[in-house]
């Protein structure tokens, strides 16, 4: 009898286990079914903007949904640090987002190279015909004779941000030449101020600094050659660039803990008056307006572009955010509609009016911008060349550059070691 009871109990357990298994498999199957077949009329967009930038972008998407009620947008806000990994994993898993927004052109070339991006040549014909973009803008997104992306956001780099009250108080003015700039740094130091601040913990500010000083002291040709590895990383021109920065570090122009803070903490520290100048892109304009709404752009805070050495032509290094449609996107036609809308003037004017944004679309008038953005847009238009930033280099090299520059900022005496390590990495990566 006891044994029979045991058998009965076991049967109950078997039944319970079976039911649990069935439920688990049903859940699994429904999840897979959901991910495999996204409903029509829904477009997923992955982007790495956060905070005030994401807010502005979401307003553009809201406007789209208002105008195209049949298409819903799934918004995928991914932290910048994990962005490329996330997209790679999604593509590998066969469930990519329809539209991806990114800023590094080097990554575009990589992902185009493995055949994962849909060409948008037909759309570009239309946009150029409408006068939205010039052929120059078209050329900048061309890889292997095809246009694989669409522009959504432009931003000037190499800008030195400061609060106007501080300049007034110190009785200094924006420098127009390289020597005026270095004099300003020395003057600020003499006044007992911390001239410069870097958020080196994030890595990319070190890279941005290096790029700007390279452009301003060596010129665009050296920069272009280095990006393509036509000159070595331990070339005298690169060495000279780092020696300039080394000199500034040794003179105490930068704060002591250069790698202890990220970009955002550095931004807050400068606004608290812990340093006078912060090197950054135009996005700091939007950040300041969001954090300190009482501060008027162009009146209470503004920027000057880091001047070039007297014998070097001035070029503006710009970062341009682009949208791509992935080849295996579930809703390609809807994705094209979204991309066309976002690259158009009606969408871009929304963000332009909010600040911290330069519209790549030529139909967005300068009058919509605040004073800082107007200055930045004017600078980008007036500059001899618009360059991509060091994002043009392969992802692996970009990572090596960021890490090695952190090492350099931490200990500038390691200059030679850093340059040799970079060259050794470049030979391995470019040689593949």
């Amino acid at each position, binding site marked *: 009898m006891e044994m029979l009871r045991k058998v009965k109990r076991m049967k109950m357990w078997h039944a319970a286990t079976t039911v649990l298994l069935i439920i688990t498999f049903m859940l699994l199957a429904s999840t897979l079914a959901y991910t495999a077949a996204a409903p029509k009329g829904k477009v997923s967009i992955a982007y790495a903007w956060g905070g005030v930038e994401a807010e502005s972008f979401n307003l553009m998407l809201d406007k789209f949904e208002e105008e195209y009620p049949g298409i819903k947008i799934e918004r995928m806000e991914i932290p910048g640090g994990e962005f490329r990994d996330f997209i790679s994993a999604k593509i590998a898993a066969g469930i990519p987002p329809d539209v991806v927004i990114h800023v590094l052109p080097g990554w575009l070339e990589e992902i185009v190279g493995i055949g994962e991006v849909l060409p948008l040549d037909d759309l570009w014909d239309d946009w150029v015909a409408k006068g939205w973009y010039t052929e120059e803008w078209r050329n900048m997104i061309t890889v292997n004779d095809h246009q694989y992306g669409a522009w959504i956001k432009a931003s000037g780099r190499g800008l030195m941000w400061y609060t106007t009250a501080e300049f007034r108080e110190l009785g200094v003015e924006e420098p127009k030449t390289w020597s005026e700039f270095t004099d300003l740094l020395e003057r600020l130091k003499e006044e007992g101020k911390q001239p410069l601040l870097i958020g080196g913990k994030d890595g990319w500010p070190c890279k941005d600094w290096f790029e700007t000083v390279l452009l301003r002291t060596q010129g665009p040709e050296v920069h272009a050659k280095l990006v393509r590895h036509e000159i070595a990383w331990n070339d005298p021109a690169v060495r000279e660039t780092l020696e300039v920065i080394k000199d500034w570090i040794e003179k105490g122009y930068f704060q002591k803990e250069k790698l202890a803070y990220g970009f955002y903490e550095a931004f807050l520290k400068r606004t608290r008056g812990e340093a006078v100048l912060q090197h950054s892109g135009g996005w700091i304009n939007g950040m300041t307006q969001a954090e300190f709404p009482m501060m008027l752009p162009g009146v209470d805070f503004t920027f000057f572009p880091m001047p070039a050495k007297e014998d070097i032509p001035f070029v503006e290094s710009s970062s341009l955010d682009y949208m791509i449609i992935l080849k295996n996107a579930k809703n390609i036609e809807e994705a094209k509609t979204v991309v066309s809308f976002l690259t158009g003037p009606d969408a871009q004017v929304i963000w332009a009016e909010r600040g911290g944004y330069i519209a790549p679309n030529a139909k967005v008038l300068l009058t919509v911008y605040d004073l800082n953005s107007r200055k930045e847009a004017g600078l980008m238009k007036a500059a001899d060349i618009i360059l991509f930033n060091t994002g043009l280099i392969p992802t692996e090299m970009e990572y090596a550059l960021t890490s090695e520059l952190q*090492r350099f900022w931490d200990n500038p005496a390691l200059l030679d070691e850093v340059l040799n390590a970079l060259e050794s990495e470049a030979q391995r990566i470019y040689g593949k």
Partner: protein
Amino acid sequence: MRLKVKLKGYMGNKPKKKINGIKSGKALSPYHFFHVIKIRKKITPYIFIFPATLIFMTFVIIPTVQAFRISLFQWNGISPFQTAQYVGLSNYQELISDRLFINAAKNNVIWLVMFTLLPVLLGLGIALLLELDIKVKNLLKSIIFLPTAISLVVAGVIWSFVYDPDFGVLNAILKSMELEFLARGWLGRSETALFAIIIAATWISTGMCMVILSAGLKGIPPEIMEAARADGANYWQLLRHITLPLLTRPLVIVVALMIINSLKSFDIVYAMTRGGPFYSTDVIALFMYRQAFPFLRAGYGSAVAVILFIIILLTALPYIRRITERTAEY
């Protein structure tokens, strides 16, 4: 003599027509009856372990075998695998001379030594202290064990605040003790960042070590201790000659667990420094992830995974042997 057996259905009392070829209600010979029970006894364990085996096969065994295979190819991890290029053992050859892999491996060795010693010694010390007659020892145990329930990523965020150069508790304490010269950006300096992370991980793991060792202490028969005391042994003699030898098994388990965790360390490093500044906190698992995902080098990343798998397997063997031993030895 014949037995009459009623075999019932799985979900109700309604008799089934046939089970194992025997009609319900039909009189069974003792041979048939025991035969049915015997078959069921044999099958039942397999039915029970089937779901776990299925999950283990799907998520562990098959991916492990796949990793071995992929490590022999050059593949970006995105394109169809047919486009991958067979490169034999060249991924492994490259690893041997990769200075960043060697750097990550060195950091893992530091992890291994520190992350094994600190939590185990602290856990042992606390477990021994809590054996003393303390009124609130259960409360203390709970408080010390609490961090174990926190995920490593969350712990990483918490400790990033602790180490914050401006607002961090650590620097605030140092300043209040007039040790301002010691205050610094703990995670921003290559010479302190790795140790700062290991200390954060120690905070999480000490509780677990304490609980396992505490259970081990509870398992020591009191009569042995009493006999030793009756022979005049003092506390330290008891500890050295009775407690520690009898704690060997839980100690081996705890040490093996810590070694495995130190080799697997990834999440807390990713949350706190992402391997920076300039690779000073990089570890093998993070190096592997970086190669496989951001750098799109799935083959090379898999080669790192295989190496890591072999190291962990070799380390885990004594642990597995210990936990599968059934007899206690006193």
